[in-house]
């Protein structure tokens, strides 16, 4: 049987979690915004550099309005990776990022957590990087689900990280 890992997407409402999820799994994008209720699950089989195959079971959770602590805890249990997504054009979506990361590290110490700043197609990358550094906002990758910029690379790297 293929190696399987559970990956959960977290973040505020409307940051583009579902768009990233659909872009990665189905290579599709839609401008239409539909709020995710509860959770939706999809699978993507990724070929690892060592020849093995990894089934990434992606859990796209409904966005929280304030803190990641609002996310249903049972959805987070047993995860192998968290992807925390924020919208680089909306400050309120990364205002509490450091506290949220602290909460995740404290309660899910064994789970790999990666941070993505999404909607790169709306702003200049240089300006965003400078602004985030200035605000002391950590991130692993800046992506655009719309243009597919950095999406596939990010998930490929994550696949390797969670199987090591």
């Amino acid at each position, binding site marked *: 049987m293929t190696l399987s890992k559970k990956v959960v997407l977290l973040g505020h409402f409307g940051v583009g979690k579902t768009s990233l999820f659909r872009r990665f799994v189905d290579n599709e994008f839609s401008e239409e915004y539909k709020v995710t209720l509860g*959770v939706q699950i*999809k699978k993507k089989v990724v070929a690892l550099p060592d020849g093995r195959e990894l089934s990434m079971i992606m859990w796209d959770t409904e966005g929280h309005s304030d803190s990641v602590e609002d996310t*249903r*805890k049972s*959805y987070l249990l*047993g995860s192998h990776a968290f992807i925390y997504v924020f919208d680089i054009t909306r400050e309120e979506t990364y205002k509490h990022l450091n506290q949220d990361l602290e909460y995740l590290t404290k309660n899910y110490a064994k789970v790999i957590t990666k941070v993505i700043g999404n909607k790169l197609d709306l702003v200049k990358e240089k300006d965003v990087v400078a602004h985030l550094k200035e605000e002391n906002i950590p991130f692993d990758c800046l992506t655009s689900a719309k243009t597919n910029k950095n999406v596939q690379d990010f998930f490929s790297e994550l696949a390797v990280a969670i199987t090591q």
Partner: protein
Amino acid sequence: MEEQDKLKLLKELLLTEEKEFADSIAQKVEELNKIVHQKQELSYKVDPIIDDKLEEFVEEIPKTLGPTITQTLKEEIKNSQDAVVEALFPIIGKMIKKYIAHEMRLLSENISRQTKKAFSFKNWFRRTKARAQGVSEGDLALSDYAKPRLIQMFVVEKHSGILITDYSPMSEGTIDKEMVAGMLTAIKSFVEDAFEGGDQNLELIEYELYTIHIQNFYSYYIAAVISGAYSMMFKEVLEDQLLEFAQRHISNRDLENSALFTKKLKKYFADDIV
């Protein structure tokens, strides 16, 4: 005036009215005779024409009146749907009932025929049982059809929803089992969270003709998809079998080795759960 003339005169005087009456009757008889005779003659001439016209009229009805009648009927049905349903319901109901009874009889006869043909211990046993119970073999075979059957079994890691292994005694389905395992876990998590059941677990999901029996263990759960009548007796037997399987046959090593787990699962549940 002679005697004879006198008598004639007297007759005329006395019987004038009667004579007039007799003449009028004779005239009426003559007229009636004429009418009857004329009608007969007319009928010979007119009847073929009427017959042709009638035939033509009947042939023309679908063309001339058809669309109007259809339109009127459509409108009437549309405007009084309730009345139409009300009127048709008992008729359709009777038809369906009759059809089902007919089909069931055919099925029962078919099964009886099949069971007569086939010679096996199982059939011999069923025949003996049917005789002992005083029921037909067909009826007994029909009750066998409602027997609960294991369709598929998923062994899923409790919190992550990762599929450890699965087993289907029937043909392989087209559904993605890993996605099913994930969704089952999400549903379980949602229900257990939403109703704040503490340590309580979701144990049963029913949909139409299927039941998903969920049995929870410490680090994993088993979801068994069952078709047919899921009775309390069957539930108890299934629970016991799953418990025994987990206790006697499964170790922590098996949870990390899905191939070994699959092998054990297939071996243990190869026969029907009764």
